[in-house]
């Protein structure tokens, strides 16, 4: 019997490709034979744009590299510039940055959880996650004036100091969140349909993950304890106490467990940061005049553990007022690249579930 294979073009406009990813899938019935991701539909030239702008002009743009983790990209860029300027950021600013990034990580993971469950066909968790994420966004709004594109970190520190009142609100939030997380877990973790669809699905072996340079929660779910917060501590991560969440399951379920665990870890860090900030006062910025700042010649790569893996910003300066070259390395890109490896031979409806479990943000892939 002659078999005809179906070539299915998924996306770029598709409800669950988290943006504008295009997948060219070859299907035999419902079984996936091969899949080819096509990226670039959201390319905005983030790297090239830097070369025509002064350092300060580029600063608000970096938040857009990863719209769910503005603080991470912002920090990566600021860190590179500060390193080339050869300045050390005040301790208090370091703690504020860390606090913001951890809150951002929780918000990002919550959104991931909601959309992942939506990919699996459950609509309610999305609303629960958005409801709780709203708390974080209002905290950010109060601190920075923005809900998503913060532009809050600046060369040599942060723009505004945190108030005790705001810190109290963060403590309140930190007290509320464990309840919210346990609510998610009640409805999801042991749900037989959820476990059926995630356990042993989308297996990403540690070796494959390393070969494709997958980082972040996806790698940690494959049993490799690599967390740049621990292995090369930046800001104040060296001073705080936390454990790396890790799982040996290698499957979608492991990735889910790791991210849930990471929210709790972030919570621990937030609590410690709040205690520090309440008890210590100090400068929040070096008051460097950022307008037309001239960065001395040199190059530097900053490493940040973002919510989607290793985020690094390579910055080459030539002594002028504009960056010579900026290169972003983001976690999502590698997650998309590894997708064809892990969905081979599975069913079409598993494809979306597995893709959802990798936590891919398309603007981050294309920049």
């Amino acid at each position: 019997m002659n078999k005809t294979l179906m070539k299915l073009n998924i996306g770029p406009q598709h409800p669950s490709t988290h943006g504008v990813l295009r997948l060219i899938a070859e299907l035999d019935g419902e079984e996936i034979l091969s899949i080819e991701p096509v990226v670039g539909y959201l390319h905005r030239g983030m790297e090239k744009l830097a070369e025509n702008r002064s350092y300060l002009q580029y600063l608000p743009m970096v938040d857009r590299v990863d719209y769910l983790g503005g603080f991470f990209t912002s920090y990566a860029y600021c860190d590179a510039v500060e390193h080339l300027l050869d300045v050390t950021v005040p301790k208090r600013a370091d703690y504020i940055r860390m606090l913001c990034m951890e809150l951002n990580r929780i918000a990002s993971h919550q959104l991931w959880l909601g959309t992942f469950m939506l990919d699996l066909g459950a609509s309610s968790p999305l609303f629960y996650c958005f409801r709780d994420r709203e708390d974080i966004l209002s905290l950010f709004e109060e601190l920075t004036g923005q809900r998503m594109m913060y532009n809050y970190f600046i060369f040599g520190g942060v723009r505004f100091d945190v108030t005790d009142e705001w810190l109290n609100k963060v403590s309140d939030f930190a007290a509320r969140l464990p309840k919210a997380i346990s609510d998610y877990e009640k409805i999801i973790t042991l749900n037989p349909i959820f476990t059926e669809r995630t356990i042993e699905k989308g297996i990403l072996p540690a070796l494959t993950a390393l070969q494709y340079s997958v980082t972040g929660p996806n790698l940690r779910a494959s049993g490799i304890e690599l967390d740049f917060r621990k292995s090369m501590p930046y800001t104040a991560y060296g001073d705080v106490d936390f454990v790396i969440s890790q799982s040996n399951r290698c499957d979608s379920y492991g990735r889910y467990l790791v991210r849930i665990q990471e929210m709790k870890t972030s919570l621990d860090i937030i609590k410690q940061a709040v205690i520090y900030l309440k008890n210590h006062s100090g400068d929040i910025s070096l008051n460097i005049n950022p307008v037309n700042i001239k960065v001395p010649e040199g190059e530097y790569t900053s490493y940040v553990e973002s919510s989607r893996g290793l985020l690094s910003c390579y910055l080459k300066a030539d002594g002028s007022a504009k960056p010579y070259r900026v290169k972003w390395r983001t976690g999502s890109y590698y997650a998309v690249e590894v997708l064809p490896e892990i969905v081979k031979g599975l069913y079409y409806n598993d494809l979306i579930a597995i893709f959802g479990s990798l936590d891919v943000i398309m603007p981050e892939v294309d920049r």
Partner: protein
Amino acid sequence: MNYLYFWYIELLTKYRIPKLFGDITFPVLPFCIVAAAIIFAVLFLVLAERKILGLFTQRKGPNRVGIWGIMQTVADAIKLLCKQNIDPRGADKILYNAAPILVFVPAMILWGIIPYSSEFVFMNFSVSALLYISIAALPVIGIMLAGYASNNKFSLIGAVRSGAQIISYELPTMFVLLSVVLVSSSMNLKDIVFSQLGSFSIFNWNILPCFLGFIIMFISVLAELNRCPFDLPEAESELVAGYNTEYSGMRFALFFLAEYAMMFVMCAFMAILFFGGFLPVTGKYFSEMLFADNRFLQLFIYVEQVIWLMLKTFILVFMVMLVRATLPRLGSKELMKFSWYILLPLSMVNFIVIAIIKFYIDGGAV
């Protein structure tokens, strides 16, 4: 119903119109009334579902059109009516246009078979339960055609999934129905309801002997309705919208209407099979107790019966919605496994056990 029928025939013979004409046209008028009622019921259901989902997810649900958003679905319906109907390029025009009707019509016919009250059944056949289940299986043809004729790969996958799903979940439903028929010793829906009449009110209902059957049936009905967690054919995260991806305007509205009409009618069917249909929970009709001495007012019994049936149906509908708010979607492999490995053997065992018990209760007489 019989009084009405004779009155109608008498009226016709007065004007020398043959009786055959009367036999054919007699169900038409009540049927039209029911058809209008269905539309209202569906409008209400859609709103109710959105409100209930809103409740579960801590939102308000629709609240802009009219008071508490009651007119929301009306507004949506008007929007759908005004929309352009698009024929996709390469679509099979005839089948493409026929598909929504093929889905919609069976859902409407089913309403005629339901015994709303002891006197109010439009089509009272001796094997109406069997007829019911056969007509309920028809919409899958329309769904398959919709997917095939749309010339869209997502639609096609959705349609094939739907076909496979409905066929595999039809079998457990059949076995459960058989066990209920055994317990009630009848295939007529009205007789099934009356067989649940007894001195112990709710303890006479079929839900007690057929509890396992009810669970199986409930799950199968969810699958047959393409409802969550079996909504693979229209899985929005994978197949965009499944078999109705290419449909717009009124054709889409027909699919939508059919889905909700089927949901309602299936729940009514379950209420009849397991929860005593139009029998009251209290054991005695309220109108019987209130108007004990007034023969005319006792006619309210029939109204009350309809209300009881609707009440039970709505509770089941609520459960269906609750499931939708709670569960994620099954995978296609697990879906098939669940039906063939778990539900079907279980329903067979259920059937055999009930048959054996029935045999001994009836004193071993064949």
